[in-house]
């Protein structure tokens, strides 16, 4: 791998130094910095959720933990509502992709349609999640009645917050393009936003799978982690 090759370089060698004189470091690429930053953001967010998931698995092995699926009276034994929300989020992702493709092929109107429907469905997703919270509350699944409930609320809230962060950045991108008035420059930043949307969809799918797992699955996963 190139990183190992880099680490084996001998910068003190005058021959090498002379040979390296001509070498320019990566050409200046305004999008490059943002792309690297996005990669780091996705890594950090993954670590954040991963840690939550690990504590979830560990906590699940204590006797008071009652997972949200499995028994008929538990809310996610029938995950229809979650599927609907997942569908909404997936549509948002697709709309972003469509917007991106249109921006790339310089179809500005289509790009705007794509972005606005992505925003619409993202907000719809957030509202649907809120509605789900209310539904659970009505059923008596409060935040503090069981650790499984607590995890459900915390994880969905955190995911929602990251969605909102994405919306703010997206708004910023659109505004800048609007006012600086060079629609060709839209596709670069939009590419990054789209990646982030897909990433959040991926995170959500993992959370979805975890939160609707039956106790046997959770126990098996926890056992694999050594809890």
């Amino acid at each position, binding site marked *: 791998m190139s990183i190992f090759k*880099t*680490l*084996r*370089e*001998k*910068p*003190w*060698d*005058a*021959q090498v*130094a*002379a040979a*390296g*004189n001509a*070498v*320019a*470091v*990566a050409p*200046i*690429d*305004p*999008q*490059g*910095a*943002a792309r*690297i*930053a996005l990669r*780091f*953001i996705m*890594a*950090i967010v993954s*670590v*954040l959720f991963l*840690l*939550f998931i690990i*504590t979830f698995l*560990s*906590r699940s092995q*204590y*006797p*008071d933990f009652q997972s949200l699926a499995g028994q008929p009276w538990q809310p996610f034994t029938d995950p229809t509502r979650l599927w609907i929300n997942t569908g909404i989020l997936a549509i948002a992702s697709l709309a972003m992709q469509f917007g991106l493709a249109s921006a790339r092929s310089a179809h500005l109107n289509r790009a705007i349609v794509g972005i606005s429907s992505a925003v619409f469905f993202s907000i719809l997703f957030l509202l649907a999640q809120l509605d789900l919270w209310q539904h659970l509350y009505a059923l008596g699944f409060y*935040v*503090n009645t*069981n*650790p499984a409930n*607590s995890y459900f609320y*915390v994880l969905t809230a*955190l995911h929602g917050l990251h969605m909102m962060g994405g919306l703010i950045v997206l708004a910023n991108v659109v505004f*800048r393009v609007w006012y*600086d008035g060079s629609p060709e420059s839209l596709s*670069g*930043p939009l590419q990054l936003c789209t990646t982030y949307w897909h990433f959040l969809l991926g995170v959500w799918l993992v959370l979805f799978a975890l939160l609707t797992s039956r106790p046997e699955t959770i126990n098996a996963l926890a056992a694999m982690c050594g809890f």
Partner: protein
Amino acid sequence: MQHVAIADQTEELHDPHSFITKYVWSQDHKVIAIQYGGTAIFVGLVALVLSGLMRLQLGFPESFDFIDPSAYLQFVTMHGMIMVIYLLTALLLGGFGNYLIPLMIGARDMVFPYLNMLSFWFYLLSVIILLSSFFVPGGPTGAGWTLYPPQAILEGTPGYDWGIILMLASLAVFIIAFTMGGLNYVTTVLQARTHGMTLMRMPLTIWGIFTATVLGLLAFPALLVSAIMMMLDKLIGTSFFMPALVSLGENLDYTGGSPVLFQHLFWFFGHPEVYIVALPAFGMVSDVLATHARKNIFGYRMMVWAIVAIGGLSFIVWAHHMYVSGMHPAFGFFFATTTLIIAVPTAIKVYNWVLTLWQGNIHLTVPMLFAIGFIFTFTHGGLTGLFLGNVVIDLPLSDTYFVVAHFHMVMGVSPIMVLFAAIYHWYPLMTGRMFNVTLGKLHFWFTFLGTYAIYLPMHYIGILGVPRRYFAMGTTDFIPESAQTLNASITVSALIVGMSQLFFLANVFWSIRNGEKTGHNPWGATSLEWQTPDVPPKHGNWGKELPRVYRWAYDYSVPGAKEDFIPQNHPVTKEEQTGGEHEEKA
């Protein structure tokens, strides 16, 4: 994206005009660095005063009415947390990271200056939240800087109500600030290096700061996760960490949560944190040593590898802080082994520093004194760490003053030594003037000798069995009278060391106006930050054109060269390519 381009814009930048945009809402990395540094040193002084108060109580128990057991615990907690997070992390990365990264890699600024500015303001907010806890009912939390539940949020612990909430909130804000800053540092290093500045030509300072930032970005989420969950346990009665328990005769509503889970999360952050402050210090001390010994750093590649290896390993040693919490013996064995393995790259670094000095042309300047002082304190702290890494030795010593002495040597005093070395070393660059050397030397000797006067006896007290986080010893059979005498002497030394920091403050402030003007590159250093057209560097750093880099950062005393250093932006000559290569350069 308009911001991105600033870092490597080829044309000159112009100063912002108004005072506000220049010094307050500044997006210039150098101003932000000074803002970070000033704030960090200010809270650091608060923490220093707190340690003085603790020492007064320990040295002369029953003499001070206003220090009661609760206040003592609050002092301990705030002192520890401020020193580790709000002083060291902020000053090393927010301060020096910000100042040095663009200058050392030849960029005009950070790649996201606006985010960088936000990072500082969030940091300031976190400091304000933290300090405000001194003024709320019940005062700041006294849970210890480790904040272990269940006690951290239960009645009986000082500040269990407001204090702990503010602490957790402040930490969360700090983490957001750090993440914004950290994204900038890593992206700038990866993306905005000037022509010819390959990764392996970067000074070790940058390698240290870069790796530490990556560690921070991946480790702080663990603290965030634990802060969020503890906050919920406190505020809405979830049971992430809180077991079913009876407190003050009352059954609480908590069901069977797991306090040990918190400990794992905390130390999964806490151990890398040690290296978040150590790695930048390692990097900076390497550069100070090489510059003032007029010699290339011994084993540059090995140093880079060691930094990266230590960074990686630091994620798999955390449970050595939890031997007394109880764990499967196999885990104890595993974590003891990894802990001892991490000593290998660390020892390599120490050897390389010493070998850099070997036959160097050592100039005992003030920064050099501090850098050499660091080699001593770090070696001592590291050696006791090897003891504590073993389960059987740690069990009796855990929670005694031996541990306090160990971690102060290794992560308290050592990074502080490097910070002083760095401040003195880069002072002429930041201000264009030289500090007062006599005051600097006084500062060094008081601090260095004082450190030993404080911490050497502490090891001994610890072996006697004096426990840490104790307000007073009372009458205890196994601890002889004489331990108290020792305690009094430690306190006197600590107060002297504390006061001697006035040498430093006076020096820094006095020399800004009255120091001798130094002009360019007074130390004869090779790295790029000293090659700026203006001293101190102006907005945009490089005037009309970005520098070009032709060599690594350690061409000191090259045989045949005119001077005993060749800056990184000087092209390699013909003679260098033919001659010289066999004689030197390990």
